[in-house]
Protein backbone atom coordinates (compact mmCIF):
# COMPACT_ATOMS: atom_id res chain seq x y z
CA UNK A 1 0.00 0.00 0.00
CA UNK A 2 2.84 2.36 0.81
CA UNK A 3 4.40 1.79 -2.57
CA UNK A 4 1.32 2.82 -4.45
CA UNK A 5 -0.08 5.43 -2.20
CA UNK A 6 -0.08 7.60 -5.33
CA UNK A 7 1.63 10.41 -3.55
CA UNK A 8 2.94 10.72 -7.07
CA UNK A 9 4.10 14.25 -7.55
CA UNK A 10 1.55 15.95 -9.63
CA UNK A 11 4.15 17.39 -11.92
CA UNK A 12 5.30 13.94 -13.00
CA UNK A 13 1.79 12.96 -13.88
CA UNK A 14 0.89 16.14 -15.73
CA UNK A 15 4.20 15.98 -17.56
CA UNK A 16 3.45 12.49 -18.75
CA UNK A 17 -0.08 13.45 -19.73
CA UNK A 18 1.15 16.47 -21.65
CA UNK A 19 3.65 14.38 -23.58
CA UNK A 20 1.07 11.78 -24.46
CA UNK A 21 -1.50 14.34 -25.55
CA UNK A 22 0.98 16.25 -27.66
CA UNK A 23 2.62 13.17 -29.14
CA UNK A 24 0.68 13.07 -32.44
CA UNK A 25 2.03 16.44 -33.37
CA UNK A 26 5.57 15.17 -33.33
CA UNK A 27 5.40 11.71 -34.83
CA UNK A 28 4.11 10.05 -37.94
CA UNK A 29 1.32 7.53 -38.35
CA UNK A 30 3.50 4.49 -37.85
CA UNK A 31 4.84 5.69 -34.53
CA UNK A 32 1.32 6.65 -33.60
CA UNK A 33 0.10 3.13 -34.22
CA UNK A 34 2.92 1.80 -32.06
CA UNK A 35 1.90 4.23 -29.34
CA UNK A 36 -1.71 3.11 -29.67
CA UNK A 37 -0.58 -0.48 -29.25
CA UNK A 38 1.42 0.41 -26.13
CA UNK A 39 -1.61 2.12 -24.67
CA UNK A 40 -3.81 -0.85 -25.59
CA UNK A 41 -1.52 -3.20 -23.69
CA UNK A 42 -1.23 -0.75 -20.83
CA UNK A 43 -5.01 -0.63 -20.64
CA UNK A 44 -5.62 -4.38 -20.79
CA UNK A 45 -2.74 -4.92 -18.41
CA UNK A 46 -4.32 -2.49 -15.97
CA UNK A 47 -7.64 -4.30 -16.30
CA UNK A 48 -5.97 -7.64 -15.60
CA UNK A 49 -4.12 -6.03 -12.72
CA UNK A 50 -7.38 -5.40 -10.92
CA UNK A 51 -7.96 -9.11 -10.66
CA UNK A 52 -4.39 -10.16 -9.97
CA UNK A 53 -2.69 -7.25 -8.33
CA UNK A 54 -5.68 -6.28 -6.25
CA UNK A 55 -7.59 -9.45 -5.54
CA UNK A 56 -4.70 -11.84 -5.99
CA UNK A 57 -6.34 -14.14 -8.51
CA UNK A 58 -4.07 -15.20 -11.37
CA UNK A 59 -5.99 -15.20 -14.62
CA UNK A 60 -4.29 -16.67 -17.65
CA UNK A 61 -7.41 -16.61 -19.78
CA UNK A 62 -8.13 -12.90 -20.04
CA UNK A 63 -8.24 -13.11 -23.82
CA UNK A 64 -11.68 -14.59 -23.20
CA UNK A 65 -13.08 -11.18 -22.30
CA UNK A 66 -11.33 -9.39 -25.15
CA UNK A 67 -12.74 -11.91 -27.57
CA UNK A 68 -16.28 -12.00 -26.23
CA UNK A 69 -16.36 -8.21 -26.02
CA UNK A 70 -15.05 -7.90 -29.56
CA UNK A 71 -17.43 -10.43 -31.03
CA UNK A 72 -20.42 -9.04 -29.16
CA UNK A 73 -19.96 -5.50 -30.42
CA UNK A 74 -18.73 -6.74 -33.76
CA UNK A 75 -21.73 -8.98 -34.35
CA UNK A 76 -24.17 -6.22 -33.46
CA UNK A 77 -22.48 -3.96 -35.97
CA UNK A 78 -22.14 -6.65 -38.62
CA UNK A 79 -25.71 -7.88 -38.54
CA UNK A 80 -27.73 -4.93 -37.31
CA UNK A 81 -25.54 -1.94 -38.01
CA UNK A 82 -25.61 -1.07 -34.32
CA UNK A 83 -22.75 1.21 -33.44
CA UNK A 84 -20.08 0.46 -30.87
CA UNK A 85 -21.54 2.73 -28.19
CA UNK A 86 -24.52 0.47 -27.85
CA UNK A 87 -22.52 -2.64 -28.56
CA UNK A 88 -20.31 -1.65 -25.66
CA UNK A 89 -23.07 -2.39 -23.18
CA UNK A 90 -23.74 -5.85 -24.54
CA UNK A 91 -20.02 -6.56 -24.49
CA UNK A 92 -19.69 -5.46 -20.89
CA UNK A 93 -22.81 -7.33 -19.81
CA UNK A 94 -21.68 -10.58 -21.40
CA UNK A 95 -18.16 -10.35 -20.05
CA UNK A 96 -19.26 -9.49 -16.55
CA UNK A 97 -21.65 -12.43 -16.63
CA UNK A 98 -18.86 -14.72 -17.80
CA UNK A 99 -16.47 -13.39 -15.20
CA UNK A 100 -19.02 -13.85 -12.48
CA UNK A 101 -19.67 -17.43 -13.56
CA UNK A 102 -15.98 -18.26 -13.54
CA UNK A 103 -15.42 -16.44 -10.29
CA UNK A 104 -18.44 -17.93 -8.63
CA UNK A 105 -17.50 -21.46 -9.62
CA UNK A 106 -13.90 -20.98 -8.59
CA UNK A 107 -14.46 -19.26 -5.26
CA UNK A 108 -17.45 -21.34 -4.30
CA UNK A 109 -15.41 -24.49 -4.78
CA UNK A 110 -12.32 -23.03 -3.18
CA UNK A 111 -10.14 -23.02 -6.26
CA UNK A 112 -7.18 -20.71 -6.16
CA UNK A 113 -3.60 -20.29 -7.24
CA UNK A 114 -2.47 -22.47 -10.08
CA UNK A 115 -5.76 -24.33 -10.27
CA UNK A 116 -7.60 -21.08 -10.76
CA UNK A 117 -5.18 -20.13 -13.52
CA UNK A 118 -5.82 -23.46 -15.22
CA UNK A 119 -9.55 -22.93 -14.88
CA UNK A 120 -9.30 -19.59 -16.67
CA UNK A 121 -7.19 -21.17 -19.40
CA UNK A 122 -9.73 -23.93 -19.82
CA UNK A 123 -12.60 -21.47 -20.19
CA UNK A 124 -10.70 -19.45 -22.77
CA UNK A 125 -9.72 -22.51 -24.77
CA UNK A 126 -13.22 -23.91 -24.57
CA UNK A 127 -14.55 -20.64 -25.95
CA UNK A 128 -11.91 -20.44 -28.65
CA UNK A 129 -12.81 -23.86 -30.00
CA UNK A 130 -16.47 -23.08 -29.53
CA UNK A 131 -16.27 -19.96 -31.65
CA UNK A 132 -14.37 -21.94 -34.27
CA UNK A 133 -17.57 -23.90 -34.70
CA UNK A 134 -19.98 -21.07 -34.19
CA UNK A 135 -21.19 -20.25 -37.68
CA UNK A 136 -23.14 -17.15 -36.79
CA UNK A 137 -19.97 -15.28 -35.95
CA UNK A 138 -18.18 -16.58 -38.99
CA UNK A 139 -16.53 -19.66 -37.53
CA UNK A 140 -12.84 -20.13 -38.15
CA UNK A 141 -12.97 -17.95 -41.21
CA UNK A 142 -13.55 -14.96 -39.03
CA UNK A 143 -15.79 -11.95 -38.99
CA UNK A 144 -15.01 -8.85 -41.00
CA UNK A 145 -16.43 -5.48 -40.16
CA UNK A 146 -17.07 -2.96 -42.88
CA UNK A 147 -14.17 -0.60 -43.10
CA UNK A 148 -15.67 2.78 -43.80
CA UNK A 149 -13.66 5.74 -44.92
CA UNK A 150 -10.89 6.60 -42.58
CA UNK A 151 -10.36 10.30 -43.12
CA UNK A 152 -13.00 11.89 -40.99
CA UNK A 153 -13.79 11.23 -37.39
CA UNK A 154 -16.99 9.23 -37.17
CA UNK A 155 -17.30 8.79 -33.44
CA UNK A 156 -20.76 7.27 -33.64
CA UNK A 157 -19.39 4.30 -35.53
CA UNK A 158 -15.90 4.63 -34.16
CA UNK A 159 -14.28 5.02 -37.51
CA UNK A 160 -11.57 7.48 -38.35
CA UNK A 161 -7.90 8.14 -38.84
CA UNK A 162 -5.22 6.64 -36.60
CA UNK A 163 -5.28 9.87 -34.63
CA UNK A 164 -8.78 9.17 -33.40
CA UNK A 165 -7.90 5.70 -32.23
CA UNK A 166 -4.84 7.01 -30.47
CA UNK A 167 -6.79 9.58 -28.49
CA UNK A 168 -9.53 7.07 -27.74
CA UNK A 169 -7.00 4.62 -26.36
CA UNK A 170 -5.26 7.39 -24.45
CA UNK A 171 -8.57 8.38 -22.93
CA UNK A 172 -9.32 4.79 -21.96
CA UNK A 173 -5.88 4.24 -20.45
CA UNK A 174 -6.05 7.48 -18.49
CA UNK A 175 -9.52 6.49 -17.30
CA UNK A 176 -8.27 3.07 -16.21
CA UNK A 177 -5.39 4.66 -14.38
CA UNK A 178 -7.70 7.07 -12.58
CA UNK A 179 -10.16 4.31 -11.72
CA UNK A 180 -7.44 2.10 -10.29
CA UNK A 181 -5.90 4.94 -8.33
CA UNK A 182 -9.27 5.71 -6.82
CA UNK A 183 -10.03 2.06 -6.12
CA UNK A 184 -6.70 1.50 -4.41
CA UNK A 185 -7.40 4.20 -1.90
CA UNK A 186 -11.00 3.27 -1.29
CA UNK A 187 -12.50 0.69 0.97
CA UNK A 188 -12.47 -1.77 -1.92
CA UNK A 189 -8.75 -1.34 -2.39
CA UNK A 190 -7.99 -1.96 1.26
CA UNK A 191 -10.24 -4.97 1.35
CA UNK A 192 -8.68 -6.47 -1.75
CA UNK A 193 -5.19 -5.98 -0.38
CA UNK A 194 -6.24 -7.59 2.88
CA UNK A 195 -7.74 -10.57 1.07
CA UNK A 196 -4.60 -10.90 -0.96
CA UNK A 197 -2.36 -10.80 2.08
CA UNK A 198 -4.31 -13.10 4.37
CA UNK A 199 -7.83 -14.11 3.51
CA UNK A 200 -8.57 -15.70 6.86
CA UNK A 201 -7.51 -12.61 8.79
CA UNK A 202 -9.56 -10.50 6.39
CA UNK A 203 -12.66 -12.54 7.07
CA UNK A 204 -12.15 -12.14 10.79
CA UNK A 205 -12.43 -8.39 10.21
CA UNK A 206 -15.86 -8.66 8.67
CA UNK A 207 -14.83 -8.88 5.03
CA UNK A 208 -17.01 -11.12 2.87
CA UNK A 209 -14.07 -12.30 0.77
CA UNK A 210 -16.25 -14.15 -1.67
CA UNK A 211 -18.23 -11.08 -2.65
CA UNK A 212 -15.22 -8.81 -2.89
CA UNK A 213 -13.27 -11.24 -5.03
CA UNK A 214 -16.24 -11.51 -7.34
CA UNK A 215 -16.37 -7.72 -7.56
CA UNK A 216 -12.72 -7.60 -8.63
CA UNK A 217 -13.39 -10.22 -11.28
CA UNK A 218 -16.43 -8.35 -12.53
CA UNK A 219 -14.63 -5.02 -12.77
CA UNK A 220 -11.66 -6.63 -14.47
CA UNK A 221 -13.91 -8.38 -16.98
CA UNK A 222 -15.89 -5.23 -17.70
CA UNK A 223 -12.77 -3.19 -18.33
CA UNK A 224 -11.33 -5.86 -20.61
CA UNK A 225 -14.61 -6.05 -22.53
CA UNK A 226 -14.15 -2.41 -23.49
CA UNK A 227 -10.71 -3.29 -24.85
CA UNK A 228 -12.40 -5.97 -26.90
CA UNK A 229 -14.79 -3.49 -28.43
CA UNK A 230 -11.90 -1.22 -29.28
CA UNK A 231 -10.08 -4.19 -30.82
CA UNK A 232 -13.05 -5.03 -33.04
CA UNK A 233 -13.39 -1.56 -34.47
CA UNK A 234 -9.68 -0.91 -34.75
CA UNK A 235 -8.61 -4.10 -36.49
CA UNK A 236 -11.94 -4.83 -38.14
CA UNK A 237 -11.38 -8.54 -38.41
CA UNK A 238 -11.86 -11.17 -35.74
CA UNK A 239 -10.61 -14.75 -35.80
CA UNK A 240 -11.23 -17.14 -32.94
CA UNK A 241 -7.79 -18.69 -33.35
CA UNK A 242 -6.18 -15.34 -32.78
CA UNK A 243 -8.30 -13.39 -30.43
CA UNK A 244 -8.95 -16.16 -27.89
CA UNK A 245 -5.55 -17.76 -28.16
CA UNK A 246 -3.51 -18.27 -25.05
CA UNK A 247 -0.72 -16.11 -26.51
CA UNK A 248 -3.12 -13.14 -26.31
CA UNK A 249 -3.72 -13.90 -22.65
CA UNK A 250 -0.01 -14.05 -22.05
CA UNK A 251 0.56 -10.78 -23.91
CA UNK A 252 -1.96 -9.15 -21.61
CA UNK A 253 -0.07 -10.15 -18.50
CA UNK A 254 3.43 -9.34 -19.79
CA UNK A 255 3.03 -5.61 -19.25
CA UNK A 256 1.97 -5.73 -15.61
CA UNK A 257 4.31 -8.60 -14.71
CA UNK A 258 7.29 -6.81 -16.16
CA UNK A 259 6.25 -3.39 -14.96
CA UNK A 260 5.01 -4.44 -11.57
CA UNK A 261 1.91 -6.35 -10.53
CA UNK A 262 -0.39 -4.41 -8.26
CA UNK A 263 1.17 -1.05 -8.98
CA UNK A 264 -0.45 1.81 -10.85
CA UNK A 265 2.35 2.58 -13.28
CA UNK A 266 3.50 -0.99 -13.76
CA UNK A 267 1.26 -1.90 -16.69
CA UNK A 268 2.05 1.27 -18.61
CA UNK A 269 5.78 1.03 -18.01
CA UNK A 270 5.87 -2.66 -18.81
CA UNK A 271 3.86 -2.23 -22.00
CA UNK A 272 6.08 0.63 -23.13
CA UNK A 273 9.33 -1.18 -22.40
CA UNK A 274 8.18 -4.37 -24.05
CA UNK A 275 6.73 -2.83 -27.19
CA UNK A 276 9.55 -0.38 -27.77
CA UNK A 277 12.27 -2.93 -27.17
CA UNK A 278 10.60 -5.52 -29.35
CA UNK A 279 10.15 -3.00 -32.13
CA UNK A 280 13.79 -2.09 -31.80
CA UNK A 281 14.80 -5.73 -31.98
CA UNK A 282 12.57 -6.30 -34.99
CA UNK A 283 14.17 -3.38 -36.79
CA UNK A 284 17.66 -4.51 -35.90
CA UNK A 285 16.97 -8.02 -37.13
CA UNK A 286 15.42 -6.73 -40.32
CA UNK A 287 18.50 -4.65 -40.92
CA UNK A 288 20.64 -7.73 -40.45
CA UNK A 289 18.37 -9.74 -42.73
CA UNK A 290 17.42 -12.10 -39.91
CA UNK A 291 13.69 -11.67 -39.97
CA UNK A 292 12.69 -15.12 -38.78
CA UNK A 293 9.25 -15.87 -37.36
CA UNK A 294 9.39 -16.48 -33.65
CA UNK A 295 12.31 -14.20 -32.83
CA UNK A 296 10.11 -11.54 -31.29
CA UNK A 297 8.43 -14.00 -29.00
CA UNK A 298 11.70 -15.54 -27.91
CA UNK A 299 12.69 -12.03 -26.96
CA UNK A 300 9.46 -11.60 -24.96
CA UNK A 301 10.23 -14.86 -23.20
CA UNK A 302 13.76 -13.80 -22.34
CA UNK A 303 12.65 -10.44 -20.97
CA UNK A 304 9.95 -12.13 -18.92
CA UNK A 305 12.49 -14.64 -17.64
CA UNK A 306 14.96 -11.96 -16.59
CA UNK A 307 12.31 -9.88 -14.89
CA UNK A 308 10.88 -12.83 -13.00
CA UNK A 309 14.32 -13.92 -11.89
CA UNK A 310 15.93 -10.63 -11.00
CA UNK A 311 13.14 -8.13 -10.49
CA UNK A 312 10.28 -10.23 -9.17
CA UNK A 313 8.23 -7.19 -8.27
CA UNK A 314 8.72 -5.61 -11.66
CA UNK A 315 10.62 -2.70 -13.05
CA UNK A 316 8.52 0.07 -11.51
CA UNK A 317 9.16 -0.41 -7.76
CA UNK A 318 12.93 0.17 -7.89
CA UNK A 319 12.34 3.18 -10.10
CA UNK A 320 9.67 4.48 -7.76
CA UNK A 321 12.10 4.14 -4.87
CA UNK A 322 14.74 6.07 -6.79
CA UNK A 323 12.26 8.78 -7.53
CA UNK A 324 11.29 8.66 -3.88
CA UNK A 325 7.61 8.19 -4.55
Amino acid sequence: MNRNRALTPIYLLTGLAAILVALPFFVGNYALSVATLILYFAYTGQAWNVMMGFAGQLSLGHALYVGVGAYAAGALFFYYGIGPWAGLWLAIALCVALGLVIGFLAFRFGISGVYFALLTIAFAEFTRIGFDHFGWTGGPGGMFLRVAQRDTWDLANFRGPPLMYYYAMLFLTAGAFALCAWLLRSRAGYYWQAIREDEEAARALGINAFRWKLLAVAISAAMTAVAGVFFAFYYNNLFPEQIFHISRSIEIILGPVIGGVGTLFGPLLGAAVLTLLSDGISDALNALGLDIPGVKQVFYGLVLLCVVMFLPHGIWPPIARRLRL
Partner: protein
Amino acid sequence: MSLLEVRSVSKHFRGLRAVHDASLDVPHGEIYGLIGPNGAGKTTTFNMIAGVYAPDSGEILFGSAPIHGLRADQVCAAGIGRTFQIVKPFAGLSVLDNVMVGAFLRERQARAARELSVRILERLGLGAKRELPASSLTLPDRKRLEVARALATRPKLLLLDEVMAGLRPTECDQMIAVFRELNRADGTTILLIEHVMRAVMALARHICVLHHGEVIARGTPEQVVRNPAVLECYLGEETEV
Protein backbone atom coordinates in the same frame (compact mmCIF):
# COMPACT_ATOMS: atom_id res chain seq x y z
CA MET B 1 -27.74 -10.38 31.42
CA SER B 2 -25.30 -12.39 29.31
CA LEU B 3 -23.77 -10.93 26.22
CA LEU B 4 -22.64 -14.31 25.00
CA GLU B 5 -24.40 -17.56 25.78
CA VAL B 6 -22.89 -20.84 24.69
CA ARG B 7 -25.49 -23.57 25.24
CA SER B 8 -24.51 -27.22 25.15
CA VAL B 9 -22.34 -27.08 22.07
CA SER B 10 -20.63 -30.15 20.76
CA LYS B 11 -18.18 -30.68 17.93
CA HIS B 12 -16.75 -33.84 16.47
CA PHE B 13 -13.90 -34.16 14.01
CA ARG B 14 -14.13 -37.48 12.21
CA GLY B 15 -15.01 -39.43 15.28
CA LEU B 16 -12.79 -37.45 17.62
CA ARG B 17 -14.90 -35.71 20.20
CA ALA B 18 -13.36 -32.28 20.50
CA VAL B 19 -16.05 -30.54 22.51
CA HIS B 20 -18.99 -32.13 24.24
CA ASP B 21 -21.99 -30.43 25.76
CA ALA B 22 -20.10 -27.29 26.76
CA SER B 23 -21.89 -24.25 28.10
CA LEU B 24 -20.77 -20.90 29.36
CA ASP B 25 -22.23 -17.44 29.89
CA VAL B 26 -20.23 -14.27 29.49
CA PRO B 27 -21.91 -11.34 31.24
CA HIS B 28 -21.92 -7.84 29.74
CA GLY B 29 -18.83 -5.84 30.42
CA GLU B 30 -16.87 -8.65 32.01
CA ILE B 31 -13.53 -10.27 31.36
CA TYR B 32 -14.09 -13.99 31.15
CA GLY B 33 -11.39 -16.65 31.00
CA LEU B 34 -11.48 -20.01 29.24
CA ILE B 35 -8.70 -22.30 30.36
CA GLY B 36 -7.74 -25.94 30.25
CA PRO B 37 -4.81 -28.17 29.38
CA ASN B 38 -3.69 -28.68 25.80
CA GLY B 39 -6.25 -30.48 23.72
CA ALA B 40 -9.06 -29.54 26.08
CA GLY B 41 -11.16 -28.06 23.31
CA LYS B 42 -10.63 -24.37 24.05
CA THR B 43 -9.63 -23.45 20.51
CA THR B 44 -12.46 -25.48 19.04
CA THR B 45 -14.96 -23.67 21.24
CA PHE B 46 -13.35 -20.38 20.36
CA ASN B 47 -13.58 -21.14 16.66
CA MET B 48 -17.22 -22.09 16.93
CA ILE B 49 -17.98 -18.75 18.54
CA ALA B 50 -15.90 -16.91 15.95
CA GLY B 51 -17.67 -18.59 13.05
CA VAL B 52 -14.77 -20.61 11.71
CA TYR B 53 -17.01 -23.65 11.89
CA ALA B 54 -20.46 -24.46 13.15
CA PRO B 55 -21.18 -26.61 16.19
CA ASP B 56 -22.62 -30.04 15.50
CA SER B 57 -25.24 -29.39 18.14
CA GLY B 58 -26.14 -26.72 20.63
CA GLU B 59 -26.58 -22.99 20.28
CA ILE B 60 -24.53 -19.87 20.57
CA LEU B 61 -26.39 -16.66 21.31
CA PHE B 62 -24.90 -13.22 21.11
CA GLY B 63 -27.12 -10.63 22.74
CA SER B 64 -30.00 -13.11 22.40
CA ALA B 65 -29.48 -13.51 18.64
CA PRO B 66 -28.25 -16.89 17.41
CA ILE B 67 -24.85 -16.74 15.78
CA HIS B 68 -23.95 -20.41 15.52
CA GLY B 69 -23.47 -21.34 11.90
CA LEU B 70 -22.75 -17.81 10.76
CA ARG B 71 -19.63 -17.17 8.69
CA ALA B 72 -16.63 -15.53 10.29
CA ASP B 73 -17.28 -12.22 8.57
CA GLN B 74 -20.90 -12.24 9.66
CA VAL B 75 -19.87 -12.90 13.24
CA CYS B 76 -17.55 -9.92 13.08
CA ALA B 77 -20.26 -7.73 11.64
CA ALA B 78 -22.52 -8.79 14.51
CA GLY B 79 -20.01 -7.28 16.93
CA ILE B 80 -17.42 -9.91 17.82
CA GLY B 81 -13.76 -9.17 17.16
CA ARG B 82 -11.05 -11.79 17.43
CA THR B 83 -7.30 -12.16 17.41
CA PHE B 84 -5.32 -15.14 16.21
CA GLN B 85 -3.05 -17.27 18.31
CA ILE B 86 -0.32 -17.05 15.70
CA VAL B 87 -0.57 -13.43 14.69
CA LYS B 88 -1.66 -12.71 11.14
CA PRO B 89 -0.71 -9.17 10.22
CA PHE B 90 -1.12 -7.98 6.67
CA ALA B 91 2.62 -7.99 6.20
CA GLY B 92 2.73 -5.95 3.01
CA LEU B 93 0.72 -3.10 4.51
CA SER B 94 1.72 -0.45 7.00
CA VAL B 95 0.61 -0.61 10.61
CA LEU B 96 -1.97 2.09 10.00
CA ASP B 97 -3.32 0.41 6.89
CA ASN B 98 -3.67 -2.82 8.80
CA VAL B 99 -5.94 -1.16 11.31
CA MET B 100 -7.81 0.72 8.61
CA VAL B 101 -8.85 -2.57 7.08
CA GLY B 102 -10.64 -3.25 10.32
CA ALA B 103 -11.99 0.29 10.61
CA PHE B 104 -13.63 0.13 7.19
CA LEU B 105 -16.23 -2.25 8.58
CA ARG B 106 -17.99 0.57 10.39
CA GLU B 107 -16.62 3.64 8.60
CA ARG B 108 -17.20 3.73 4.86
CA GLN B 109 -15.14 6.85 4.19
CA ALA B 110 -11.38 6.56 4.13
CA ARG B 111 -10.86 9.71 6.15
CA ALA B 112 -13.10 8.59 9.02
CA ALA B 113 -11.52 5.14 8.93
CA ARG B 114 -8.08 6.68 9.16
CA GLU B 115 -9.02 8.88 12.09
CA LEU B 116 -10.49 5.98 14.00
CA SER B 117 -7.41 3.89 13.27
CA VAL B 118 -4.99 6.55 14.43
CA ARG B 119 -6.91 6.95 17.69
CA ILE B 120 -6.85 3.24 18.36
CA LEU B 121 -3.16 2.96 17.56
CA GLU B 122 -2.39 5.83 19.95
CA ARG B 123 -4.33 4.09 22.66
CA LEU B 124 -2.35 0.91 22.20
CA GLY B 125 0.96 2.71 22.13
CA LEU B 126 1.67 2.11 18.45
CA GLY B 127 0.96 5.64 17.28
CA ALA B 128 4.57 6.47 16.50
CA LYS B 129 5.01 3.34 14.42
CA ARG B 130 1.98 3.74 12.25
CA GLU B 131 3.77 4.29 8.95
CA LEU B 132 6.09 1.34 9.43
CA PRO B 133 5.49 -1.88 7.51
CA ALA B 134 3.71 -4.37 9.72
CA SER B 135 6.37 -6.95 8.95
CA SER B 136 8.97 -4.88 10.79
CA LEU B 137 7.25 -5.02 14.18
CA THR B 138 8.44 -7.07 17.14
CA LEU B 139 6.21 -9.82 18.46
CA PRO B 140 4.66 -7.82 21.33
CA ASP B 141 3.93 -4.98 18.93
CA ARG B 142 2.42 -7.40 16.44
CA LYS B 143 0.12 -8.65 19.13
CA ARG B 144 -0.87 -5.10 19.91
CA LEU B 145 -1.50 -4.52 16.22
CA GLU B 146 -3.68 -7.59 16.09
CA VAL B 147 -5.74 -6.25 18.99
CA ALA B 148 -5.88 -2.77 17.47
CA ARG B 149 -7.13 -4.18 14.20
CA ALA B 150 -9.86 -6.14 15.92
CA LEU B 151 -10.83 -3.11 17.97
CA ALA B 152 -11.23 -1.05 14.84
CA THR B 153 -14.29 -3.11 14.00
CA ARG B 154 -15.90 -1.69 17.15
CA PRO B 155 -16.65 -5.02 18.77
CA LYS B 156 -18.95 -5.48 21.71
CA LEU B 157 -17.10 -8.68 22.52
CA LEU B 158 -13.39 -9.23 22.03
CA LEU B 159 -12.13 -12.78 21.68
CA LEU B 160 -8.46 -13.20 22.55
CA ASP B 161 -6.74 -16.41 21.53
CA GLU B 162 -3.70 -17.03 23.76
CA VAL B 163 -2.59 -13.47 23.24
CA MET B 164 0.08 -13.72 25.96
CA ALA B 165 1.88 -16.62 24.31
CA GLY B 166 5.51 -15.83 23.63
CA LEU B 167 5.57 -12.64 25.67
CA ARG B 168 8.01 -11.97 28.46
CA PRO B 169 6.56 -11.22 31.91
CA THR B 170 6.96 -7.45 31.59
CA GLU B 171 5.39 -7.48 28.12
CA CYS B 172 2.64 -9.66 29.52
CA ASP B 173 1.99 -7.12 32.26
CA GLN B 174 1.75 -4.37 29.67
CA MET B 175 -0.86 -6.29 27.72
CA ILE B 176 -2.77 -6.98 30.92
CA ALA B 177 -2.87 -3.24 31.56
CA VAL B 178 -4.16 -2.60 28.03
CA PHE B 179 -7.04 -5.02 28.42
CA ARG B 180 -7.94 -3.78 31.87
CA GLU B 181 -8.12 -0.27 30.49
CA LEU B 182 -10.25 -1.35 27.51
CA ASN B 183 -12.63 -3.16 29.76
CA ARG B 184 -12.84 -0.35 32.25
CA ALA B 185 -13.06 2.63 29.90
CA ASP B 186 -15.13 1.25 27.01
CA GLY B 187 -16.92 -1.54 28.78
CA THR B 188 -15.65 -3.97 26.13
CA THR B 189 -16.52 -7.52 27.09
CA ILE B 190 -13.55 -9.84 26.74
CA LEU B 191 -13.36 -13.62 26.44
CA LEU B 192 -9.83 -14.87 26.64
CA ILE B 193 -8.31 -18.26 26.11
CA GLU B 194 -5.11 -18.45 28.02
CA HIS B 195 -2.39 -20.71 29.26
CA VAL B 196 -0.56 -17.94 31.08
CA MET B 197 -2.12 -18.11 34.54
CA ARG B 198 -0.70 -14.78 35.55
CA ALA B 199 -2.87 -13.07 32.98
CA VAL B 200 -5.98 -15.09 33.69
CA MET B 201 -5.78 -14.52 37.41
CA ALA B 202 -5.12 -10.82 36.95
CA LEU B 203 -7.86 -10.16 34.42
CA ALA B 204 -10.71 -12.62 34.63
CA ARG B 205 -13.72 -12.09 36.85
CA HIS B 206 -14.98 -15.55 36.03
CA ILE B 207 -13.28 -18.59 34.57
CA CYS B 208 -14.51 -21.69 32.79
CA VAL B 209 -12.28 -24.77 32.75
CA LEU B 210 -12.39 -27.30 29.92
CA HIS B 211 -10.90 -30.77 30.00
CA HIS B 212 -11.26 -33.42 27.30
CA GLY B 213 -13.89 -31.27 25.65
CA GLU B 214 -16.13 -30.90 28.68
CA VAL B 215 -16.60 -28.16 31.22
CA ILE B 216 -15.28 -29.35 34.54
CA ALA B 217 -15.46 -26.18 36.58
CA ARG B 218 -16.82 -22.65 36.55
CA GLY B 219 -16.39 -19.84 38.99
CA THR B 220 -14.20 -17.01 40.16
CA PRO B 221 -10.43 -17.45 39.86
CA GLU B 222 -10.14 -18.13 43.58
CA GLN B 223 -12.79 -20.83 43.44
CA VAL B 224 -11.35 -22.46 40.38
CA VAL B 225 -7.76 -22.76 41.59
CA ARG B 226 -8.98 -24.57 44.68
CA ASN B 227 -11.24 -26.91 42.74
CA PRO B 228 -9.88 -30.48 43.09
CA ALA B 229 -10.98 -31.52 39.61
CA VAL B 230 -9.08 -28.61 38.13
CA LEU B 231 -5.98 -29.35 40.13
CA GLU B 232 -6.07 -32.95 39.03
CA CYS B 233 -6.32 -32.21 35.35
CA TYR B 234 -3.40 -29.82 35.56
CA LEU B 235 -1.11 -32.14 37.50
CA GLY B 236 1.84 -32.90 35.36
CA GLU B 237 0.87 -30.20 32.85
CA GLU B 238 3.15 -27.24 32.30
CA THR B 239 1.50 -24.03 33.28
CA GLU B 240 3.18 -20.66 33.54
CA VAL B 241 2.23 -18.80 36.64
